[in-house]
C-alpha cells in the first residue's frame, strides 16, 4: 500500500486525554480574568498597566532563561504568564511599576529557574515573588486605594479591611461582638450598593442581617488588584472544579480548618468568648479566596495525593489563622501557603497510596 509518510511510531497509550500542561495553565488564566476585570473596573485603568507589566516581565524572564540555557521555548505553556498574572493580582492598585517587574523576575529567575523551570520549583513562584517585594517595599505594598464603586469617600489612601482591623485592634479593650461591628462603629465606609442589598436581605431574612458583607463578597473593598471580588473568584474556581483542574481536597481542608479556628478563637479579641468568631467575615476579606482556589492548589507545589492535599490545606488554614489573628501581619495567606510548600515533600512521603496486593501488616507481598 502507498502513502507511508504520516505513520507515527510511538509507545502506548496511543490515545491521550485532551488535557495538556498548556491547556491547564491557560484555563486557570481564563478563570482569573473576571476577577481581574473587576479590579480594573473599580481601581481604574492604571491597574491594567500594572498587570501588563507583571505579566510581561514574567514572560520576558522565562523567555530569557530558556534562550540563555538553550532550552526549548516554554512561554507558550502559559505557566510564566500565570505566574505574572498572579503576581499582579497580589499587588495593591497604586504600586509603582518597578515592583511588579522585580517580583516577576524574582519569581521566574530565582524561584522557578534555579531549580530547573516548570515543575521543578518547590515554592509557588508567584507567592514567593509577592512575599519578596512585600518585605522589601512594605510601604508600597500596604498602600491601598478605595475602589471606585465606593461613593463619596477619599479614593486615594485608605486601609484594607484587615489592615484597618489590625491597627484598630492594637490597643482595643472594648467588646464589639466582632470585626464587622467594629468596622461599622469606627465609621469604615460602606457602599450604597451594600446598603441596598442589605436592606433587601433584611426584607427576606429579617432584621438580623448585618451590613458590609456584600461589599466583601462582591469586592467593594480596598485590597490587592485581583483578590477583592470573592464572587468572581468563586465563579472562576467553579469552572476549574468542573474541568477537574483543581480537586476539592485543598480548598475544602483549607477553608474548614481556617473557619473552625476562626470560629473557636476569632471572638476572643472582641471579648466575645470562645466560639464567637466571625467566619464569613474572615473568609471574604483579604486574599483568602485567591489563595485557596488559585495558589494553594498550584499542582507543582502541592502534594500529589488526596490525603496529602487534605493535610496541606488544613496546615495552610491553621497558619493563615495564626498569622492573621496572632501575627503582626493583617493577612497571612501568602506566607501560610509558602510555608506549607516546604512541607510538601514530607507530606508526599507519608501519604503514599496503598498499593494493590500489599497487605498493611507485613508491609510486603502477602
Amino acid at each position, binding site marked *: *500500500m502507498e*502513502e*507511508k*509518510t*504520516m*505513520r*507515527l*511510531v*510511538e*509507545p*502506548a*497509550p*496511543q*490515545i*491521550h*486525554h*485532551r*488535557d*495538556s*500542561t*498548556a*491547556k*491547564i495553565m491557560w484555563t486557570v488564566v481564563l478563570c482569573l480574568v473576571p476577577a481581574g476585570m473587576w479590579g480594573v473596573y473599580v481601581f481604574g485603568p492604571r491597574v491594567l498597566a500594572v498587570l501588563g507589566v507583571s505579566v510581561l516581565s514574567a514572560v520576558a524572564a522565562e523567555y530569557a532563561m530558556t534562550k540563555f540555557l538553550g532550552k526549548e521555548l*516554554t512561554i507558550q*505553556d502559559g*505557566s510564566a504568564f500565570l505566574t505574572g498574572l498572579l503576581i499582579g493580582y497580589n499587588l495593591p492598585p497604586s504600586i509603582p511599576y518597578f515592583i511588579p517587574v522585580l517580583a516577576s523576575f524574582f519569581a521566574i529567575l530565582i524561584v522557578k529557574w534555579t531549580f*530547573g*523551570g*516548570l*515543575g*521543578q520549583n518547590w515554592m509557588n513562584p508567584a507567592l514567593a515573588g509577592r512575599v519578596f517585594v512585600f518585605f522589601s517595599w512594605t510601604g508600597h505594598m500596604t498602600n491601598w486605594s478605595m475602589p471606585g464603586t465606593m461613593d463619596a469617600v477619599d479614593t486615594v489612601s485608605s486601609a484594607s479591611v484587615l489592615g484597618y482591623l489590625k491597627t484598630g485592634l492594637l490597643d482595643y479593650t472594648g467588646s464589639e461582638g466582632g470585626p464587622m461591628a467594629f468596622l461599622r462603629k469606627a465609621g469604615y465606609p460602606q457602599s450604597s450598593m451594600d446598603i441596598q442589598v442589605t436592606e433587601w436581605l433584611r426584607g427576606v431574612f429579617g432584621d438580623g442581617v448585618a451590613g458590609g458583607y456584600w461589599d466583601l463578597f462582591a469586592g467593594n473593598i480596598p485590597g490587592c488588584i485581583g483578590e477583592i471580588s470573592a464572587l468572581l473568584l468563586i465563579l472562576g474556581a467553579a469552572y476549574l472544579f468542573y474541568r477537574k483542574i483543581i480537586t476539592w481536597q485543598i480548598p475544602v481542608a483549607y477553608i474548614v480548618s481556617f473557619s473552625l479556628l476562626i470560629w473557636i478563637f476569632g471572638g476572643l479579641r472582641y471579648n466575645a468568648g470562645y466560639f464567637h468568631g466571625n467566619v464569613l467575615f474572615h473568609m471574604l476579606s483579604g486574599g483568602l479566596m485567591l489563595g485557596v482556589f488559585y495558589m494553594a492548589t498550584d*499542582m*507543582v*507545589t*502541592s*502534594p*500529589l*495525593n*488526596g490525603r496529602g492535599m487534605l493535610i496541606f490545606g488544613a496546615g495552610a488554614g491553621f497558619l493563615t489563622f495564626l498569622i492573621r489573628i496572632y501575627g503582626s501581619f493583617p493577612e497571612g495567606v501568602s506566607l501560610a501557603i509558602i510555608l506549607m510548600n516546604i512541607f510538601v515533600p514530607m507530606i508526599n512521603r507519608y501519604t*503514599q*497510596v*496503598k*498499593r*494493590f*496486593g*500489599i*497487605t498493611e501488616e507485613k508491609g*510486603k*507481598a*502477602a
Partner: protein
Amino acid sequence: MKGLKTYPKGGVHPPDRKGSSSDKPIKNALIPQTLVIPLSQHLGKPADLAVEVGDEVREGMLLGKSSGFISAPVHSPVPGKVKEIKDVYLPNGIKTKAVVIEMEGEFDRSGKEQQRREWKHMSAKELLEIITENGIVGLGGATFPTNVKLSIPKGKKAELFVVNGVECEPYLTIDHRLMLEKTDELLEGVEIIDKILAPERMAIAIEENKPDAIQLMEEKIAAKGLNIEVIPLKLKYPQGDEKLVLKAITGAEVPSGGLPIDIGAVVSNAGTVYSIYEAVVFNKPLIERFVTVSGGAIKDPANLKVRVGTPIGDLIEECGGFTEVPAKIVVGGPMTGFTVYDLDTPVIKGTSGVLALTAKEVKSAGRTNCISCGRCIQVCPMGLNPTTLFKKVDHLEYDEAVDLGLNDCRECGSCGYVCPAHIPLVQGIKLGKRMARKKKG
C-alpha cells in the same frame, strides 16, 4: 445500570469508540497467498523450528515445537510450501524467526464437515494435553500459554474460574461479537474448563456497555441449566486486566508479584475459551483468531476471522482501505497496543485489533516537565506512583523503583493517557523493568 461491581481505585474512561464495529457480524477474512508465521507468538521461549525450506506443509501441521515449560507450538494456518525462513519484527518491535508459507494445495479442514470429539469422558490430563498440542495461548493480548495457566500447581486449588468478556480497550469489539455469535461454543468451552479445573464457582464478567451479550449469556445459561454466573461490571478501563476483574468480582487482591491462582482463581479471555473449545472438540490448532479492524481512518470497520500470518495491510484493504492518511497504525487496542510502520506485519496469536487512527484521534500536545498534578497516581489501579517510578528509572535507580512497586505495574497505560505533560510513563516503566531484570542477572 446502578450498583454494578467494579474495582475501587483508579481507572480511566477513554472514549470507547466501539460503535463503528460492534454491530458488524464476524466475517471470514480472505486468505492471502503468502503468510508469515513467527515462531514467537506467545509469552515465554520461542518455538523450535520443525520444518525446512521447501517442505510441503498441510493445514494445521506443526511448524514449531514447544521448547520448554513456558512455550507453545506454532502450526501452519494453510496448506502450502515453506518458501523461506526469515527474521521478522513482531508488532512489539521484537525480532524473531518466522516461517514464510506460499499457499498451495488442498485444505484439510476448512470448508469441510468436521467430526466432533466426545470429550466428556476424558480426564483433565488428557484435555490439557490437547490444549498444549494445539498451541492455545491467552488471546487477550498477553499470550500466556493456556495449558500452563490451567495446570494448577500443587497445594493450590482453583475455586473460581472467570471468563473475561470485559473487553475494556476502546475500539475492540471482537470478544463482544464472539459472545453474541458463538455463545453455545463459548459455554461448551467453559464446560471443558470446568472438567479440567473443577472450580466451585464459574462466572462470566462482562462490562455494562455490552447489554445484549449479558442478556444472551444469561438466557443461554438458564436454558442449558449451567451453573455459571453472568456478572455485569461497571464500565472502567482497565477492568479487563485479570487482577482487576478478580478484584471487581471477589474483592480479593492478587498479592504483589503473585498470580490469580494465589487467591484461588483462574481467568481466561473469551477468545481463549473459544479456542479451547475448537481445540478440544475439533482438534483444531490455534491457526485462526478474531480481529477487530477499526479506527477513524478505516473505511468499513469490521470484525474478522483471520488466519495467523496474514499481513495487517490485507485486512485493512479488505475493510475498504484508508479514508485518509492515518497518523498511526496500531496493533492491539489503543491503550496498550503497539504502533507499526510496516503494513506487512503479520497477525499473530495475540493480535486482537488492527486500528488505523486519524491525527484527530491520536491528538496530543507536546511533552513538558512533570507538573506534579498527581493524576497518574489517581488513575493507577495498582496504587503506584507512576511519576516517581519514571523519575527513578530516569535516574537509573532501578532498585528503588522496584521497591516502589515497579514490577506491579500492569502496563495498562492509564497514567500515560491522563498525563497532561505527555510523559511516556509506561514506556519508562517498561524500560525500568527490563533494566532491573538485567541488573539482577
